């Protein structure tokens, strides 16, 4: 126990100290900086950090929607226990057993703009059809594309003029989409398993009662089963959410920082600053922000779950 407290809490405190210190080169320097929060000020002035925060938030929203939505759908479809139930369930969860590095490498190859997915679009005749109706063929650059979809800088600029000065477009970076697909491929099975476990706790009598009351099979799900699955959704969202805020390996193996930092995230920022640029105080500051983001999600959840016992 003492070891855990030291390795977790004392080390976090030391990291906070480093983030406030003058240790910005290879030479260790524990003296505090004046002004104290200089590393944080520097970091929040960096366009790269703005991109990182945008990316990790956009990634979290997209990844959670896809994996939870798809996971719930698969769990509900499997709930009919049709032929092949066990096989399907095992296939959907399989990617969870793999390393993020393996996932990243496989999907990097699949989203290579010269081949993979784009080749599939050609093969299915989609592009021939697009050209025949006079539009350009659909060949996105995927991970090599620095573009940002649905940029809201202009519209937001009307309300907060400061947004116009941002060097970062607030929207969905195109290069981030393949990463969302890869992460969802790996973790949809987890969401599905959570829902399957949740569905098993819905008493059969309850569904039976609803049917006797004249509910259609569809209504049994929307009116009885889904509301009972709410707590499962909360747990799943929180667990996947903290994975997503910490995401590092997958992006490191798949795209790195991406074109124009389109797929950079705080996890990679910390790694680059600490181990490549040896700007230890900056890396430490970014890691503390990561910790705070995760804590906002996790602490209320732990508080509620453990107090209930």
């Amino acid at each position, binding site marked *: *126990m003492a*070891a*855990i*407290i030291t*390795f*977790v*809490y004392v*080390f*976090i405190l030391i*990291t906070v100290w480093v983030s406030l210190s003058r240790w910005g080169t290879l030479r260790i320097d524990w003296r505090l900086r004046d002004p104290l929060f200089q590393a944080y000020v520097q970091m929040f002035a960096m366009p790269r950090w703005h991109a990182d925060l945008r990316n990790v938030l956009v990634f979290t929203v997209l990844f959670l929607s896809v994996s939870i939505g798809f996971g719930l759908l*698969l769990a509900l479809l499997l709930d*009919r*226990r*049709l*032929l*092949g139930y066990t096989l399907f369930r*095992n*296939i*959907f*969860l*399989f990617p*969870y057993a*793999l*390393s993020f*590095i*393996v*996932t990243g*490498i*496989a999907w*990097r*190859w*699949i989203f*290579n703009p010269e*081949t993979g997915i784009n*080749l599939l679009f050609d093969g299915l005749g989609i592009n021939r059809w697009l050209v025949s109706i006079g539009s350009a063929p659909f060949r996105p650059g995927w991970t090599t594309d620095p573009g940002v979809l649905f940029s809201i800088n202009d519209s937001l600029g009307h309300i907060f003029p400061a947004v116009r000065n941002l060097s970062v477009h607030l929207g969905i970076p195109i290069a981030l989409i393949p990463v969302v697909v890869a992460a969802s491929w790996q973790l949809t*099975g*987890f969401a599905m*398993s959570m829902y399957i476990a949740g569905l098993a706790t819905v008493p*059969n009598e309850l569904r*039976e009662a609803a*049917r*006797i009351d004249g509910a259609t099979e569809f209504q049994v799900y929307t009116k009885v089963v889904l509301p009972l699955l709410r707590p499962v959704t909360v*747990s*799943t969202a929180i*667990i996947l959410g903290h994975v997503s*805020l*910490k995401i590092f*390996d997958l992006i490191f*193996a798949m795209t790195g920082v991406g074109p124009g930092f389109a797929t950079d995230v705080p*996890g990679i920022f910390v790694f680059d600053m*600490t181990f490549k640029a040896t700007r230890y105080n900056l890396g*430490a500051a*970014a*890691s503390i922000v*990561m*910790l705070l983001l995760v804590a906002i999600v*996790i602490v209320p959840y*732990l508080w509620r*779950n*453990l107090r209930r016992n």
Partner: protein
Amino acid sequence: MQFSLVNFRQSLPRTIWDWLILIVLLLSALFFLMPIYVMVVTGLKQAQNVSLSTMWQLPAHLSGGGFYEAWRRLYPNLGNSLQLTIPATIISSILGSINGYIFAKWKFRGSNTLFAVLVFGLFIPYQSILIPLIQFLEQIKLYGTIWGLIVVHVVYGLPICSLIFRNFFANIPDELVEAARIDGAGVVRAFLLVMLPLALPAFVVVGIFQFTNIWNDFLFGVTILPNPNAQPVTVALNNLSGSFSVDWNVVMAGAVIVALPTALIYILLGRFFVRGLLAGSVKG
């Protein structure tokens, strides 16, 4: 009414809806298997046959493809990963069982708070402890060694191991421990003779979970072991794909090799695997 009978058995599709469900499940399964297909098929091709335009096709003729080269370049690191993962899994399971037992059966003032403090360690981003951790490992002369990495995985694996064991022991009736006590066994004997034999399934769950986690780790491996010869296989695989001229058949074969141990565990022991995964959702 008779429909309720189908719930716990796999049944044949009867209605058009059932057929639609099956089709959607089948398409989803194709999506989930697609990257596996790409990895295996690309890995089996010869370097000169990996052309961008034939990515989705089967190899023209049967050969080891990139597997020989991938094996040659990864097998020292596979050894490192085994040397690291097996002891770390065993040690963290044993320590976790003791910890979990104490939290489940030995309520003391503040034990719940202490448990919450422990469980939070499960969720922290490890980036926020890396700098002091590396300093500490340098001090005790374990930085850059496999044993250093084992210590790290044991310590940061303890929260999840303790959590799974605590939930397991909490479901074993107190009367069993009481009975052992009345027979004259101390806390330690009660644990060793009564609880441990019962805990075998929990050991399997924790063992599988930890093996998978540690095998798949990348962040600790890349930061604590800077020497490429000592690095675990996930780091070596990433280095393989990061070099300038990427031989995709070798990289994909490498990915298959790295995925194989945990994939086999999943296929053979999937039932226990799912239990470990659900335990992470912190249900007391």
